[in-house]
């Protein structure tokens, strides 16, 4: 984390007419209730975190938790009330309007929950829109947009209007549009929430495929915990504007920091989330069975094999080196233990 792409320091967003003064008076100790009594609504409460290059940070929270507000502060669609936000070391709040427009034209892309396509433009025109805004010649922008159309798999539909597309296809256009200027930072605001479950899964897979190829720095907003677990490098869980916990999916499932977070993790199928690496025993590498499993496998995939063994199973890394072991009992404990009986 030497050079974070996005860095937030004590970011506050408070809605209301006298928000700034109240924030100053509170000395950084914001209590949502007292603010509400004075006609202010706390959107984001003291958020500090960093996102590294190529990392995907998923912000998870229920509606009204301030996750979208946080995203809009970082994209400066709204101005944060307090705190500092750095984009690649640049102080975002110090930028003037022209610099901000420049930043958006070259560095940022954003995907929206309701797709937010322009109804009067075709698929390819929608995708070319940010390029044309930038001042690129129409023909060049269309050519570039056509590449994007191919990238998201919409060939043959480039001359359709948004109204003629299904939800999933519309969001593909939204994704292609946000990628057209080849941004480094990619914001996604609940991009799949408006889609049907089956389409949503398909789009998530598609999204992972794209990210593997593009390696963008991503902030992804969702209210769906399963989606967060599936996609995230790290997850930030928000409640009432406060980041309750920010950690890797495995750590969140294994060590929920607060009661609120624990409630989310309760119903999670751990075997699908946890990797062997997360539960292996590093110290014990003696007296192992023949079977070797990779540290990057999910428990779900290898549980059956491990459970068929009497002894502990060796865990290997990418270089085939043994780095730890895992005991069948541990598997059973992880998957079935520590849940309901803890209540």
């Amino acid at each position, binding site marked *: 984390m030497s050079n974070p792409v996005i860095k937030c320091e004590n970011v506050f967003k408070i809605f209301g007419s006298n928000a700034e003064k109240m924030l100053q008076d509170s000395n950084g100790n914001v209590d949502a209730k007292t603010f509400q009594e004075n006609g202010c609504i706390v959107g984001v409460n003291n958020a500090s975190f960093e996102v590294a290059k190529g990392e995907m940070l998923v912000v998870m929270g229920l509606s009204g938790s301030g996750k979208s507000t946080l995203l*809009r502060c970082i*994209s400066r*669609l709204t101005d944060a009330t307090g705190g500092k936000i750095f984009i690649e070391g640049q102080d975002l709040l110090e930028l003037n*309007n022209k610099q901000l*427009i*420049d930043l*958006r*034209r*070259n560095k*940022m*892309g*954003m995907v*929206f*929950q*309701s*797709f*937010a*396509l*322009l*109804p*009067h*433009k*075709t698929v390819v025109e929608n995708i070319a*829109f*940010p390029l044309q*805004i*930038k001042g690129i010649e129409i023909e060049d922008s269309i050519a570039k947009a056509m590449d994007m159309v191919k990238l998201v798999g919409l060939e043959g539909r480039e*001359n*359709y*209007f948004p*109204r003629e597309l299904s939800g999933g296809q519309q969001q593909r256009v*939204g994704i292609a*549009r*946000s990628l057209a*200027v080849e941004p480094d930072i990619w*914001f996604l605001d609940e991009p799949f929430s408006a889609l049907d479950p089956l389409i949503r899964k398909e789009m998530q897979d598609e999204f992972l495929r794209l990210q593997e190829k593009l390696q963008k720095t991503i902030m992804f907003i969702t209210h769906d915990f399963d989606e967060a677990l599936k996609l995230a490098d790290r997850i930030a869980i928000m409640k009432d504007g406060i980041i309750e916990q920010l950690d890797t999916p495995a750590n969140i499932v294994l060590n929920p920091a607060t009661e609120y977070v624990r409630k989310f993790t309760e119903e999670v199928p751990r075997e699908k989330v946890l990797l062997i690496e997360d539960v292996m025993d590093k110290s014990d590498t003696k007296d192992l069975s023949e079977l070797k499993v990779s540290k990057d496998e999910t428990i779900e995939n290898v549980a059956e094999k491990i459970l068929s063994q009497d002894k502990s199973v060796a865990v290997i890394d990418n270089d085939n080196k043994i780095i730890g072991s895992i005991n069948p009992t541990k598997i059973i404990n992880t998957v079935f233990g520590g849940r309901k009986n803890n209540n």
Partner: protein
Amino acid sequence: MEFIKKYPKVFQWLFLLLIFFGLCFAIEVPETYKFIRGQAEFVKDPNQNFYIFLGKEVRYYPFDVFWRLPPLLGWLPIWINDSLFFLMNEWLPMEFWNEDTQSYKTRPLVLQITREVTSIMTFLIELIRDILLGGLKTIVAFTSWDFVGSNSWAKMPGLPWTIVAAGAAILAYQLSGKGLALFAGLVMVYISIFGQWKPSMQTLSFILVAAPLSFVFGLGLGIAAFKNKRVEKALYPILLVMQTMPQYAVLVPALVLFGVGDHAAVIITMIVAVPPMILLTLLGLRAVPPEVIEAGRMSGCNNWQLMFKVLIPTARRDILIGVNQVIMVCFSMAVISAFIGAKGLGFNLLLALNQLNIGLALEAGLCISLIAILLDKMSLAWANKQVDYFGNLTFYERNKNAIYFGIAVFIGIVLAYLGSFYFKQGFNYLFEVPHNKGISTADFWNKGVDWIFDTFFVYIKAFNTWLIVEVLQPMRALYLRMPAVATIVLVVGAGYLIGGIRSALVVCGLTLFIALSPWWDRALVTTYMATFGVIVSCIIGFTVGTLCFQNKHSTSFMLGVCDIFQTFPSFVYLIPVMMLFGITDTSVLIAVIVYATIPATRYTIEGLRSVPTALHDAATMSGVNKFQRLTKIEFPLAFPHMMLGLNQTIVFALFMVIIGAFIGTEDLGQYILKALSDKNGAGIGLTLGICVAFIGLIFDNLIRTWVDNRKKHLGIA
């Protein structure tokens, strides 16, 4: 007692009525009081009191303040008038270069500005008229008479009617399809054959100037209001008043500023047509989803790009609905502007009505109605048309309508040319059918009217007499019998009960303005006529709407009928009623009823239709029958929307009552009509218009507040 505890509001209302009637009976009619038929300010009578404010002398008959308030605002119209006069003729004289006399001339600034605006408007109208009807004025304006004399090609003829008809049909085809194209073609052919070509094209040229200008100003102000809250706040009261102000009343100040004729009419039309455009622009821009705006911002749009590449295209439909409104307002103003000398269909209609030539009036009226429907349908089709993709079409496919139009122009010219050989004497009918030289059915209609009068005169007369003697006169007497204080208490009390102190204050202010103006009695007469019209309209509209709602086909049929009737300029409604009932109050009231029934019916149907299907199904599953469903589910839920319909009904009724002055009534409208022909009428006309607007706004405020509260209560806001 139980009942009152359960419904505290009922008790409050009863109490209010009690006070009202108490006041009515307690305050005697002063012996000297009589309904003054003449204009008080011109009568010099020793019985009058007078006071002087701002140097203006106001004369009035004094009464007990409980009975009638003194006209403390009586100086206002005179003051407005004098101020206008001062602005026009004395304020800020400056030197202006005069092109004709080649010298500087001193002129007041405002006068110079209005003259400049006037000449621009005149030029624009002439330009379009030249294209449609032929003429030289524009070319002369660009060059000189000598130039026209030496270049014979400059004597440009207008477009033959065949070309304009084909053009209209092709445009309609492109906007909507075959049906509308056929209709457009037929309307144009009808206009031509019946010899209404010239006035129609005059009216059309008027609209072609007024509508685009109104659009530009409306859009600009709408954008400004969207961007800046302060602009919106400043515009809002003006928009409100303009919405309820009778179009007729704005004509008067325009006369003073811009004189008589088409140009003045265009300017005043813009003043009337811009407010709906502003409102719809604002509505459309507000309705753009916030995410689309954010998407635009994240694409790196600057403010300009955001407005013109994202917001306006996304709000396209609402903005084009605004264009539809603008066109319809322009059209109805084009008709009414006949009063200040605008040429065209309205002028012919006015002339025919003045001569009591019902047949001619009917023809002009039919023409007006047909054009109104055509314009409405075409502009709506434009609004609802979605953008198409042309990229992969051939040149022919992309431009086929333009090509067809080119062919039509060619054929039209050839036909007109051939026609000039065929119709050697007289008129070239393939070029233009001169006014009143086409087929005319006027005689037929006139005979029909005579026949109706001969046959049904006794019945109509009996009905007329009965209505006037048994219903209207007593009702009018009752309204005039109300002491001013009682009326104010009633209105303000209603405001308080409906919307609390805020509503009460607003309503009180509006009422006081009217009460302190010199025309309280007239306002009461206007209100009585409107009330009568509204009550009857609501009964009819409510019944018809409810009945039609029982069947899907009748519902859509009725809405279609409402659509069509709504497009007719209000003035047109006077023709058939004059035909049947002659020149009486009955005619005006029947026109009011017909006109005001449209919104009453429409809102009833729409209200009933807006009841969610889920509730409908839930009720059906609870085992209600049709009647129960209507009374227990649909009416309660539709009622707020129906009340909005009542609001519209009142506005429509007021408009018609005012226009009814043309037939002859004794209300505010009569004074507005008088002000039109009065050199010093500007202030009076404007103040009268504001009075009418305020009557509308009082009801508007009460109804809207009630509806908002009710909707919140029902959870359907």
